[in-house]
């Protein structure tokens, strides 16, 4: 009875520990986001603050200033649920539903066709170049 109770407690504490670590690491990543946003504003950079933050973190990881263990669990948790994080913004389309009536509606196929052109050409070129590299070796 007693060992089992201890086991459950240990399991619970390791669970809580895991979530605590994930939360702390997400907080750490949030710091990079804030720094990136600040730099983007003050230096008027042409890329968004989140991308600036990503590049800073990447440099930090490269130079071994930041051990990968400091972010790995938080980063994996966020990336596993990346689709969820887009939902609140994409729901914003409800404010523009009138866009999908009348002449503007034709812009939907235009955007799609342009997207397919980019996807198809980039995909074929990327595949061709990568395969060529493999053959050369």
């Amino acid at each position, binding site marked *: 009875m007693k060992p089992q109770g201890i086991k459950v407690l240990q399991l619970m504490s390791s669970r809580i520990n895991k979530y605590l670590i994930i939360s702390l690491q997400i907080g750490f990543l949030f710091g990079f986001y804030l720094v990136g946003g600040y730099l983007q504003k003050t230096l008027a950079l042409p890329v968004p603050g989140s*991308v600036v933050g990503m590049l800073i973190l990447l440099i930090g990881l490269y130079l071994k200033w930041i051990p990968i263990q400091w972010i790995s669990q938080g980063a994996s948790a966020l990336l596993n649920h990346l689709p969820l994080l887009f939902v609140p913004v994409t729901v914003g389309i409800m404010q523009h539903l009138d866009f999908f009536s009348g002449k503007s509606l034709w812009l939907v196929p*235009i955007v799609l066709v342009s*997207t397919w052109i*980019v996807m198809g050409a980039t995909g074929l*070129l990327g595949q061709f170049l990568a395969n060529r590299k493999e053959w050369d070796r």
Partner: protein
Amino acid sequence: MMLLQMFFWLFITLLLYVVFRRLYQLLPYPFMIPVLTCTVVLVVVLTSFDVSYDTYFSGGQWIDALLGPAIVALAFPLYKQRKLLNKFKVEIFATVVTASLLGILSGYWLAVVSGYNEMIVSTIISKNVTTPVAMEVASMTGGQPAFAVIFVMIAGIGGAVTGPWLFQLLGISNFLGIGMAFGGASHAIGTAKALEYGEREAAISSIGLSLCALCVSLLGPLLLKWIS
């Protein structure tokens, strides 16, 4: 009351995500991706119950706040795949420039041929990059940032949904092709889809989305000036 509404919409969003993620695992069709299904259900529910987007977003903002750190977190697959990225740096550069140029030029050409005005043309050229950059390019070139958001969403969700079919049709199965196609054409939503394919595709897609954002923000306004 406000607090209750906030928690309610936050809870509903999380609940829908959990349900539709499970459903997507059971029925893994491209059009079942949770971004699309959750968005459609929420838009239908909110409009039919006459709930404003602001009311919804009071709850949704707590999820939205994690989007920035999540983009930062893309450094993690990039770092893990650093050898791969280093090996293919020339190929990555070539495909990034191709994707950016084609995105700008095809959007421009299709909109001009269809007879749209300058405002729409200036907005449509940046649809393949992540929302903040597209909005920025739109406002820099005399476009409409609110429309930029719509175009970016169509390119993102449309690309993530139809990508797998397009790849099958064209016989694209290589990680560099798939990763760069998703990152270059459908930015972060495409990258979320690329994560399903594997870590190499995700790393290429993340580098593609960041470099294309940079490339389009520099090339977009320039090209628009030259060709018009």
